[in-house]
């Protein structure tokens, strides 16, 4: 196994994976979580990764985010890009107010206080939470918390957003609304988004491109461009049709493990 190299080019938001492999554990217990995944994400592209449990979606995002090291292959990000990562849970710091949470990455970057304030206010406006800055996370609903988490990630001022089932724990209505919000922010900021989901309809609603991963080992199985014009609606027949197609492929993949 050769070790990974993470090269950084000067540009914005592109992500490239070359034969990325990840093995957890050693010896008899070793799990091949990712097996030679190669993938190019263009700046500003919205890519959805779809796959059954344990196919290595989270592993892939962790590798791109730099929270873990690949066992082999190469991950290339643009010079100075530190991707922001969002999880299924908001992972807000309960001891800080909403403002405090959004302020953390700014503090860690050493921004002066006045600038921080301004930036926090702006970010909270972006996620429609301008009036809730002084609340604590537990005083908010799940959807609001996830929006705070989004604002906090945006505070990193990074062109690459990695999202690991960010809306998986929300109810359908809130999720619909957040889809609109995310789409708006993505367009405004020209972000590159790598979005992991179990939810095929969600993928069809959001993605420029859907990538289907196989399970154990995780490999790219199939991918498709989503050519439905935006703004889209999750109930629309076009989105439903794409969803149905991906669903069937996913089902086949899942069924393969049931025999």
């Amino acid at each position, binding site marked *: 196994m050769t070790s990974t190299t993470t090269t950084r080019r000067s540009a914005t938001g592109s992500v490239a994976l070359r034969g990325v492999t990840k093995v957890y554990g050693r010896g008899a217990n070793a799990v091949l979580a990712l097996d030679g995944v190669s993938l190019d994400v263009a700046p500003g592209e919205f890519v959805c990764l779809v796959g059954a449990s344990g196919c290595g979606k989270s592993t892939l995002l962790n590798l791109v*985010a730099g*929270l873990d090291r690949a066992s082999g292959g190469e991950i290339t990000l643009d010079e100075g890009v*530190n991707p*922001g*990562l969002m*999880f299924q*849970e908001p*992972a807000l*710091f*309960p*001891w*800080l107010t909403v403002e405090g949470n959004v302020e*953390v*990455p700014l*503090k*860690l*970057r050493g921004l002066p206080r006045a600038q921080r304030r301004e930036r926090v206010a702006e970010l909270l406006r972006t996620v*429609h939470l301008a009036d*809730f800055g002084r609340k*604590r*996370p*537990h*005083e*908010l*609903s799940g*959807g*609001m918390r996830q929006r705070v988490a989004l604002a*906090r990630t945006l505070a*990193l001022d990074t062109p690459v957003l990695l999202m690991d089932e960010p809306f998986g724990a929300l109810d359908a*209505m*809130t999720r*619909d*609304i957040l889809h*609109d*919000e995310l789409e*708006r922010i993505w367009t405004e900021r020209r972000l590159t988004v790598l979005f992991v989901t179990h939810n095929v309809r969600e993928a069809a609603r959001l993605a420029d491109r859907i990538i289907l991963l196989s399970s154990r080992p995780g490999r790219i199985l199939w991918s498709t461009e989503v050519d439905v014009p935006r*703004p889209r*609606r999750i*109930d*629309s*027949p076009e989105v439903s049709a794409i969803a149905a197609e991906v669903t069937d492929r996913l089902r086949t993949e899942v069924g393969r493990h049931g025999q």
Partner: protein
Amino acid sequence: MASDTLTTGPRTDAEITGLDALDLAGREQGLSRLRRLWSATWPKLAALGLALAVWQAVVWTGWKDPWALPGPGPVFADLGGYLLSPMLWDGLATTGRRAAVGFAAAIAVGLVIGLGVARVRVLRAALGSMITALQTMPSIAWFPLAIILFQLSEEAIFFVVVLGAAPSIANGVIHGVDYVPPLLLRAGRNLGARGVNLYRYVIAPAALPAIVAGLKQGWAFAWRSLMAGELLVVIATRTSIGAQLTYARELSETTRLIAIMIVILVLGLVVDSAFGAADKAIRRRWGVLDQAGQ
């Protein structure tokens, strides 16, 4: 298709704020401050009254001689005198200072050991269960060592207090650090917090509730160790609650003994409610206020 006949535009702000408003509605409610205070106070007063009544009744039966079991009357008379005497206040000052210094030292030691054990795998295996075993060592067993190390100085008292309280505090720290949600750690790292910053911004505040619980437990041990340890070095210039307690016993002053017990109990209540308030404040901020406490 029916969907074509319906609105399909992007969500309006009204929908977002409407959802937020519905989600948050009816979250906070509460009785008036006064009523809460009253409903928290009267059972305590009732319990106190009941305890006094039972005590007085037992004394009136003449079950024991008054010098063996004095009644509330003489005890409160003595307590009154005691409260007005400089002896109590000097003693409280000395004991309070010792408790503060000893407890502070215990916190320092407990934090260092706790962090070490929590983060260093080898230390955990080596010391982990030793920490709890130390809690069962009675203070008196440490007296000789305290004297060897610190002679007849107040440091000897602090030593005993630290040995009594630090294990609980260390356990609180270990527990707290162990249970920092890994998700928060990952979020913190992704936001740019590494090394010391990770401790400052994530681990320390996340472990705080468990640390406070450890401190509270440690206080009980610290105080008990102090009461014993104050006999170790009776610096006659400084009367102390621990020494007064023992002398009251040695001089068979049962009345005074009970008066001192009341003082200790009141102190315990005060300290407990201080810890309780800290705990509650943290829980409230953290949003994990228990159902029962509401």
